[in-house]
């Protein structure tokens, strides 16, 4: 269920979900914009992290421009349910793997585990996947590369966050 969040917090998080003002004192700039004290912005920003509203507070990079040029979605078939958790842990140990998830399989989709694998080239990503296959013994796997990016953005949760009736 969606969390009940106060209007004053939504207003602050709206400023944190995009890009911080590119100035030396970004929290002071947000405070000025919202007409509140800088300390309140700082304390609230820390509080949202403690409440796990955000996973991480920091810079998000464009991997291509930073030299990480290829990424592939590794998909892995682990038919035995009891093996999926240990295999998932094993696959996620790799430093080249950024995300590892279990998702449902289907008759025409025999894969259970998904891993995002990053490397300097597609060849390198395939080589890493081959190593992961050898290490885990998972032989039915594939690597899907993105051939076109239609959209890549950050979710703007707070643009249309419904407020409790008494605060609207």
């Amino acid at each position, binding site marked *: *269920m*969606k*969390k009940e969040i106060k209007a004053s917090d939504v207003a602050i*998080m709206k400023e944190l*979900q995009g*890009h*911080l003002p590119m100035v*030396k*004192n*970004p*929290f*002071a700039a947000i405070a000025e914009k919202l007409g509140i004290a800088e300390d309140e912005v*700082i304390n609230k*920003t*820390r509080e*949202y*992290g403690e409440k*796990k*509203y*955000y*996973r*991480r*507070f*920091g*810079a*998000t*990079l*464009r991997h291509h*421009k*930073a*030299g*990480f040029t290829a990424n592939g*979605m590794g998909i892995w078939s682990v038919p035995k349910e009891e093996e*999926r958790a240990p295999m*998932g842990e094993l*696959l*996620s140990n790799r430093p080249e*793997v*950024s*995300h*590892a*998830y279990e*998702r449902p399989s289907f008759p025409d989709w025999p894969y259970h*585990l*998904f891993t995002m694998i990053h490397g300097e080239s597609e060849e390198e990503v395939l080589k890493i996947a081959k190593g992961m296959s050898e290490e885990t013994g998972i032989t039915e796997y*594939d690597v*899907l590369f*993105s*051939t*076109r*990016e*239609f*959209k*890549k*953005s*950050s*979710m*703007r*949760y707070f*643009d249309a966050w419904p407020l409790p009736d008494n605060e609207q």
Partner: protein
Amino acid sequence: MNLEDIDKRILNIIQTGFPITHAPYTEIGEKVGVDEDEAFNRVKAMFDGGVIRRIGGSFDSRGLGWTSTLCALKVPSDKIEEAAKVVSRYANVTHNYERNHEYNLWFTVIAPDTDEVDRILKEIHRDSGFGPVRNMPLIKKFKIKVDFQFKEKKEATA
């Protein structure tokens, strides 16, 4: 854009945790041995140069009580741009890619609840003419690590 070792050290720090303080660039500078001006100018140059997409909170759908899912659609290759347009128009869709598979359009949907996800997926089916959309919600999360630690080259000069 060419990144110097000091830029990489700064990126390693600010990806993991941008200081939530009055003068964050002073703190970043102290950690890498430069002053506030230089730390700020280097970060600004990496933002302007496109290496840094954004600095802010990576809000968590689950932490906020929302739900997120990965979806896939089979579309004839000559129709994929039109189908992608239908998918991308939703603010709920943050990632939308063509991939080299029979299921060739892959996208994420983030919504307050699964009813809203289902409603969006039905609309995409109806408006694109393709589907039904294959919905693959998370069963278990093993790892999520979106910062990329850079290895520094051996310093040639001190």
